[in-house]
């Protein structure tokens, strides 16, 4: 019987979009059955348009910067867009997959994507904002699969 991987994706920034989609697509390639439960800011990763994903250096002292930059400078208007642009350039030049590509790889290999219904209601998201290949559910839906999974991770 296939191994199972259950993930919770709770973050919606460009950098944190990678771990759930990398792990899910790789697990699917290793013949795992995979489900990802997207909750709170993670729901952003199910939007049709992923172009809004951003990365912020603010409050993240571990983020490599070309020159050392105090927090006060990082909060200036335009810094977030600049950091995002630089990250996207790096991603392209280093042969790292785009989030779109990884998400498509997940969908093509049968990874089940579940949107947290509660968060959808909380943030007034509309179903038409999301891609078609998803289901909606709650905590009990997650546990139905997670309870019988070999690996469960909260990201």
């Amino acid at each position, binding site marked *: 019987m296939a191994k199972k991987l259950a993930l919770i994706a709770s973050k919606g920034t460009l950098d944190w979009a990678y771990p759930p989609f990398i792990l899910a697509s790789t697990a699917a390639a290793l013949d795992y059955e995979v489900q990802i439960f997207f909750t709170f800011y993670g729901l952003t990763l199910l939007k049709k348009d992923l172009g809004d994903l951003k990365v912020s250096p603010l409050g993240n002292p571990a983020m490599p910067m070309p020159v050392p930059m105090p927090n006060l400078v990082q909060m200036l208007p335009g810094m977030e867009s600049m950091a995002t642009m630089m990250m996207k350039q790096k991603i392209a030049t*280093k*042969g790292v997959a785009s989030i779109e590509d990884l998400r498509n*790889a997940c969908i093509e*290999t049968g990874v089940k994507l579940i949107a947290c219904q509660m968060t959808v209601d909380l943030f007034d998201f509309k179903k038409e904002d999301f891609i078609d290949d998803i289901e909606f559910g709650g905590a009990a839906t997650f546990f139905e699969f997670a309870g019988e999974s070999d690996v469960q991770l909260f990201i």
Partner: protein
Amino acid sequence: MDFDKELDATNLNCPLPILRCKKGLSEINAAQVLKIMATDPGAVKDFQAFCKQTGHELLQLDEAEGVYTFYIKKHA
């Protein structure tokens, strides 16, 4: 070494070489051999781990000028 299908996964980073490999294996028959090239140094361990977990056989691994070439025999 003889092979039945060749894939180029050079200049791609984790997890793309593994995803390409998986797709390539799905397009050949059991016991046929896939040749796949990668430049990601992490791919060496990853391909070994991939084969160990999926039952495909890593027949040979060559390295030349930073390019790793894997020959993988699809399991029955």
